[in-house]
C-alpha cells in the first residue's frame, strides 16, 4: 500500500482471519494500523497486493462513536438497517435486539448529548451489530474512554464476540487490551508498516477481569511490550 505522495504505509503485510478469531494489531502511532482497516473496508484502495473480504457483511467501529446528534439512540442504531432499505418494523425489531445486547435498554429515546462517552460507544456498537456482520473491524474504539469504562466495554465486546462468533480485527494502543481480547496479537513497526511479531493468546474464553492479573497474562504482555519497543527503534 503506497499513498499518492509516495509514502509507503504498508509493506508485505499478510494476515487472514476466520470466523471466531479475534486478531488485534498493536504498533506505534502512524505505523499504518488504521490503513490496514481502511483497506480491508475499502475506504482506501490498496495500491498493491490482494484483499479478500466479504464487503457486504462488515461492521466498522470508529475511534469516536460517530452517532448522529439529531437522532435518538434507537434511531441511531437503526441507521445502517435504514441504509440497507429494510422496512420500519424490521429495523425497529433489529435495533431493539441490538440495544438489548449492549445493555442500553431504557435509553432508546435519549439523544447522544445526554449520554456519557461509554454509553455512546455502546450505541455505536449496537449500530454495527444490527445487520449481524460476519466481519468486525475496530479502529481503536475505546481509546478515548477511562480505564474502568474501557475494561467494562472490553468484557461487553468479548460477550458479543462469543455470542455472534464474528471474525474480529481490532486496533489498539493498549497491550493489556490486546491480550485480553484476542486470539492473536500482531505487532507492527512503522514506515513502512510491517508485521514484525505474532503472538498466539492461549487463554480460553469466556475470559474474566481477573485474567489481567495472572502471571501468564503479564508474561505475554511483557513479550509484546518488548517486541513493540523493537518496532519503535
Amino acid at each position: 500500500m503506497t499513498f499518492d505522495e509516495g509514502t509507503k504505509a504498508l509493506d508485505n503485510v499478510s494476515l487472514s482471519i476466520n470466523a471466531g478469531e479475534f486478531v488485534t494489531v498493536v504498533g506505534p502511532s502512524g505505523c499504518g494500523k488504521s490503513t490496514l482497516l481502511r483497506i480491508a473496508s475499502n475506504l482506501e484502495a490498496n495500491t498493491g497486493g490482494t484483499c479478500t473480504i466479504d464487503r457486504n457483511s462488515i461492521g466498522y467501529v470508529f475511534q469516536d462513536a460517530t452517532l448522529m446528534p439529531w437522532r435518538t439512540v434507537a434511531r441511531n442504531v437503526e441507521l445502517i438497517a435504514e441504509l440497507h432499505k429494510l422496512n420500519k418494523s424490521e429495523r425497529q425489531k433489529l435495533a431493539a435486539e441490538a440495544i438489548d445486547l449492549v445493555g442500553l435498554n431504557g435509553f432508546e429515546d435519549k439523544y447522544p448529548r445526554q449520554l456519557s462517552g461509554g454509553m455512546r460507544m455502546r450505541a455505536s456498537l449496537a449500530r454495527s451489530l444490527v445487520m449481524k456482520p460476519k466481519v468486525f473491524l475496530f479502529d481503536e474504539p475505546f481509546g478515548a474512554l477511562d480505564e474502568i469504562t474501557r475494561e467494562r466495554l472490553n468484557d461487553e465486546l468479548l460477550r458479543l464476540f462469543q455470542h455472534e462468533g464474528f471474525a474480529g480485527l481490532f486496533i489498539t494502543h493498549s497491550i493489556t487490551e490486546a491480550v485480553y481480547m484476542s486470539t492473536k496479537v500482531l505487532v507492527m513497526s512503522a514506515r513502512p508498516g510491517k508485521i514484525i511479531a505474532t503472538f498466539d493468546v492461549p487463554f480460553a474464553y469466556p475470559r474474566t477481569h481477573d485474567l489481567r492479573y495472572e502471571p501468564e497474562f503479564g508474561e505475554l504482555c511483557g513479550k509484546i511490550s518488548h517486541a513493540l519497543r523493537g518496532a519503535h527503534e
Partner: protein
Amino acid sequence: MSSTNVTPSPIDEVIPDKRDKFSFTDYIGPAIIFLVFIGIWYLFSTIVLPDQKRFLLPTPHKVVTDGFFVWHSGERRGLQPILLSLWDSAKIALIGLSITIVVGMSLAVLMSSSRWLERATWPYLVAIQSAPVLALTPLIRALIDGTQTQRLLVVVLIAMFPIVSNTLFGLLSADKSQHELFTLQGASKWTRLVKLQFPAALPNIFVGLRISAGLAVIGAVVGDFYFRQGGVVGIGAQIDVYRNRLWGAELITAIILASTLGLVVFLFFGWVSRRAIGKWHIINRGH
C-alpha cells in the same frame, strides 16, 4: 460459542439535562434598556433639539396619541393606512424570503456537491451581497417590468447571501467518520444529503434563516422606496411620504411598526429553530 449468556455490565449515568430556560430576570435587561431609550428620546425632543427642529422628533406620548391612537385621518394619516402598508410590505418580504430560501438552499446544495461550482459562484454571491441596491435600481427598473416583481427582486438580492453561506457551511460540516459510515454502506449521494448533510446543517441553516428573514424585511422596505405605484403602497413608500410632509408622529409610528415586523419574523424563526433542533443541538456558553 454462541451459547454464552449475554449479560451486559452495569451502565454509567445519563448526563443530566441542562438547557437554557427563560426566567423573569431575562426580561429585566430589555426593560431597563427600553426605559433608558425612552428617557433619551424625551431628552432630545424637549431639551436637546432647538425649538425649530422639534417637529422632527415628537415626544413619545405624542407619537402614541397622534400616530398609534388615530385610526384614520385624511388620505394617509392614522394607524389604518400604516398597517395596510405594513401588510403590503410584509407580503413582499415573506414571498421574497420564500423564493430566497428555495433558491439559496438549492444553490448551496449544488455548491456543496461540487468544489468547482463553489469556486465559480462564490465571488458573484459576494458581489451581489456587497453591491448597494440603490445603485442597482436603475438597472432593475430597465430590465424588469412590474412593481411587485421589482420589489421581490430587491428582497431576494438583499436576503440571499446569509442563506447560501450558512447552508453551505452546514452541509460541509459533517464529520469525516460520519461520511465514512455512509460510504461503508454504499449510500448514494442523495441519501448522504438527506440523512447526513442536511440534518447536520440545520443549526447553521437556522442561523442563516434568522439573518435572511430580518434582511428580507429590510429589503421590502428599501424596495418600497424605489418601486411604487398607485393604490396601497408599501411601508417604505409610506415612510417616504411622511418624511416629505414632515409628519413626525406618523413617521415614527411607521418606523416602529416596520422594526416590529422584522423583530416578529426574527423571533418566529428562533421559535421554529428551537422546535426543530432544540432537543439535540448543543449550546456551549463556556460557563
